[in-house]
């Protein structure tokens, strides 16, 4: 198949095959937990590292193709690795490595599906994601795309005895399938009646504005359904909590990114045109999604739901950047398009790292405490320091705080916004600052959400007695968490190298790349050093130095005496842990400020109640405005259709008689 040195594409294909082999091995010994967890999963992690390396080397070289002897007769599976695929492969490999190692320690006996089967689904899942990134014709893409959805469905429902988990899985698969059909139709448009479904042929097709618009709409719908763009996000907060934590980590960190990849592939590679208002639509959708996600995650009281909504938010930010890029490209401002695109890819990468880190942390908490409700956690920083301190890194990163990675991409995004005045469209110039403001608001709210997340889970006093026997995570899990946390820090401190990688992607997609105006690895200056520059490493160093200096100075001139005492109880000695601020309480300001977002039902206590009770339930308007009406309509249509089958044979005969007569008249 290949001669000479092993090419990146061949290497990643080998990785896929290795994963499938591991999956089969898992099926061979479905009950053997030790084998699966201590041999198969770590091996899978190593393979993932190899894949990351392949992606790394694939970034540098130019596109490389391969044709498998499978698929349809006229359409064997085409594989192709260009910089875009390589970048996402790198993302996939590096994150999966951490998650797999964690999973090695995470698998337990007697939880839902047999470990062997879980191993099967898991590795088929990541293998299919890899192939999605490599696919170079519509059929292969769809096959791997749906395989990905299917395997992840089985992972989500791995504890299928719970009804709510089943329904979550069903909702997930349904949305995924509808989205997939939309993508399929999108490819149907792109092939332009040539009947040739290879991406290579699609690139050549010239589209009219009408068909281009249709393709864009279908792509946005299809990939948006997978990525969780509002209003198609409903499956996300259901499916992520239902899945085992490593799986939620992978789904949120990598699977959503495959949707981003597909969108980029269609919009910047296959579709031969760009229209400015597409950019506006994508931008608007992204903004709505981001705000929606963050506001909802602020009021969640289940830690995994909270993270799921925060994924919605981050995907929203990614699509905001995409919208900007489309706008710029539509006006042939390629340098700025490159900037926006860089911000987008960078944020995708960052989100992959910190979101998987946090999901894994929640997994450890879940195992240690058997609790997902924020209202029953607290004070775990004493019981599980490893998880707590590593989660702190993720928390700060996802809150977009310098000098960690989350901030870099937000910085780039805001920079991109600051350049929009260049656009030759007054309306856009007016609209964009508002959008920038919304992005800023989202970022700030993310900080709020993350303080809530971290503070309620790890800080304060334990809200339940049983939390006392919570234990820290095992060695495998630690390795995984450390790996991801290190990723967060490095991505944050050394952005110049990362942008160096992304440049090759933007170069392939736009023919222009960002480069780094300020030479040297220390400073990041996207356009020009005078324009804006950011040196996270220096930033970190200075803070650390000042902190140390301050510490030493205090110790030097004064003393380090400490006395432990009880907390100040404000003259009320009977305070208990239950009197701490709950997650709901912490969400209350957001409920107050963003009231119209929610469909809230409050039960206020009556002053004369013996046991006063305050209950508030927050729901999503979209269920009532969009999904229930749809279901209702479908039901109505069904009951109409049902009239066709009322059991009367004479009526049946009448149908065929009338059909006959109608056709006869039609022939006349």
């Amino acid at each position, binding site marked *: 198949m290949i001669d000479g040195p092993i090419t990146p594409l061949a290497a990643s294909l080998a990785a896929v095959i290795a994963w499938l082999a591991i999956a089969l091995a898992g099926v061979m010994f479905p009950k053997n937990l030790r084998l699966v967890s201590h041999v198969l999963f770590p091996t899978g992690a190593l393979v993932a590292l190899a894949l990351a390396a392949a992606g790394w080397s694939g970034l540098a070289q130019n596109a490389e193709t391969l044709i498998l002897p499978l698929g349809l007769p006229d359409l064997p599976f085409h594989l192709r690795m260009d910089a875009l695929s390589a970048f996402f492969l790198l993302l996939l490999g590096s994150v999966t490595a951490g998650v797999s190692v964690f999973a090695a320690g995470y698998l337990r006996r007697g939880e839902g599906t047999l470990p062997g089967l879980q191993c099967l689904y898991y590795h088929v899942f990541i293998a299919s994601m890899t192939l999605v990134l490599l696919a170079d014709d519509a059929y292969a893409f769809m096959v791997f795309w749906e395989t990905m959805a299917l395997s992840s469905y089985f992972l989500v429902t791995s504890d299928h005895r719970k009804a709510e988990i089943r329904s979550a899985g069903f909702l997930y698969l349904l949305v995924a399938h509808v989205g997939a059909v939309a993508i399929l139709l999108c490819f149907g448009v792109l092939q332009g009646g040539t009947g040739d479904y290879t991406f290579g042929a699609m690139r050549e097709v010239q589209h009219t504005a009408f068909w281009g618009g249709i393709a864009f709409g279908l792509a946005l719908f299809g990939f948006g359904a997978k990525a969780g763009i509002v209003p198609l996000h409903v499956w996300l907060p259901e499916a992520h909590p239902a899945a085992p934590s490593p799986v939620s980590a992978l789904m949120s960190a990598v699977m959503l990114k495959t949707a981003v990849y597909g969108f980029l592939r269609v919009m910047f590679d296959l579709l031969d045109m760009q229209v400015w208002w597409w950019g506006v639509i994508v931008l608007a959708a992204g903004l709505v999604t981001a705000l929606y996600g963050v506001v909802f995650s602020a009021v969640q009281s289940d830690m995994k739901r909270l993270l799921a909504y925060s994924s919605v938010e981050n995907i929203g930010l990614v699509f905001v950047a995409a919208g900007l890029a489309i706008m710029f490209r539509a006006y042939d401002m390629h340098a700025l398009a490159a900037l926006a695109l860089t911000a987008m890819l960078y944020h995708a990468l960052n989100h992959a790292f910190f979101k998987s880190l946090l999901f894994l942390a929640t997994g450890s908490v879940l195992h240690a405490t058997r609790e997902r409700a924020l209202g029953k956690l607290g004070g775990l920083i004493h019981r599980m320091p490893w998880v707590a301190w590593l989660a702190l890194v993720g928390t700060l990163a996802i809150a977009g705080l310098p000098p960690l990675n989350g901030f870099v991409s937000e910085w780039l995004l805001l920079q991109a916004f600051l350049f929009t005045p260049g656009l030759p469209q007054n309306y856009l110039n007016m609209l964009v600052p508002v959008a920038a403001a919304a992005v800023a608001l989202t970022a700030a709210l993310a900080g709020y959400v993350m303080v809530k997340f971290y503070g309620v889970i790890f800080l304060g006093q334990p809200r339940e007695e049983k939390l006392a026997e919570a234990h820290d995570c095992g060695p495998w899990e630690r390795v995984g968490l450390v790996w991801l946390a290190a990723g967060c820090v490095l991505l944050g401190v050394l952005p110049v190298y990362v942008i160096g990688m992304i440049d090759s992607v933007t170069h392939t997609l736009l023919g222009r790349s960002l480069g780094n105006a300020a030479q040297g690895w220390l400073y990041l200056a996207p356009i020009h050093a005078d324009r804006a520059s950011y040196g996270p490493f220096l930033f970190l160093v200075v803070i650390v130095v000042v902190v140390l200096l301050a510490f030493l100075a205090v110790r030097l001139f004064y003393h380090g005496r400490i006395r432990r005492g009880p907390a100040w109880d404000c003259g009320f000695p009977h305070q208990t842990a239950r009197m701490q601020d709950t997650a709901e309480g912490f969400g209350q300001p957001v409920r107050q400020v963003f009231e119209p977002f929610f469909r809230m039902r409050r039960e206020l206590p009556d002053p004369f109640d013996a046991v006063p009770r305050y209950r508030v339930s927050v729901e999503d308007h979209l269920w009532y405005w969009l999904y229930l009406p749809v279901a209702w309509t479908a039901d109505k249509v069904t009951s109409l259709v*049902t009239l066709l089958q009322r059991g009367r044979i004479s009526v049946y005969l009448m149908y065929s008689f009338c059909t006959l007569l109608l056709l006869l008249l039609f022939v006349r």
Partner: protein
Amino acid sequence: MLPLSSQVINLLAAILLLLAFAMLTQRRILSLINLFALQGLTLALSTAVVAWSTGQSHLYWSALVTFALKVVVLPWILHRLIRRLNVKWDVETLLNIPTTMLIGIVLVILAFNLALPISQLAGTITKSTLGIAMASMLLAFLMMITRSKAVPQVIGFLAMENALFFAATSATYGMPMVVELGIALDVLVGMIILGVFFFQIRERFDSLDIRHLEKLKEE
């Protein structure tokens, strides 16, 4: 001035149509069967006439088969069924007779209109009768729809078969022999199976009213 044979055939065709209407309006089941037998007879006659006038020998055979099957065997089977199941009741229709008649007229007009261009093409001496064949088929169909008892429905089915036969002989001088035999066989077997059915339905629902057969449906 048409040749005698085709005059005769047209006459028989007219009779066929008349019989179709009669069956459509007939209330009593026994006379329905007799009408059916009569229709079969007409059919056999017309086939024979065609055979005679065109010298198509195989048509004699098909005339013979028709006679045997539709004048002798099937009426006999039906009569026995009636006696064995002692269903002497009058036929009640789902649609009242005048309405049925009106619809029937409309159908006839439609059928004639449809058949007109085709009959122009036909080179046979019987070309004008295709419309009649189609009309009587549609009438039989209508009869099946309007009858609420099993036996009349089946008779309607057989009447439709007759109409088709007539179409075959009139439009083209009969189908190829092997096909005709196949068709005849199917009709016979179908009839026997139906006979078996009647008994089973009777023993399950102790009635042959097909309005009992309305359990399977969507709520």
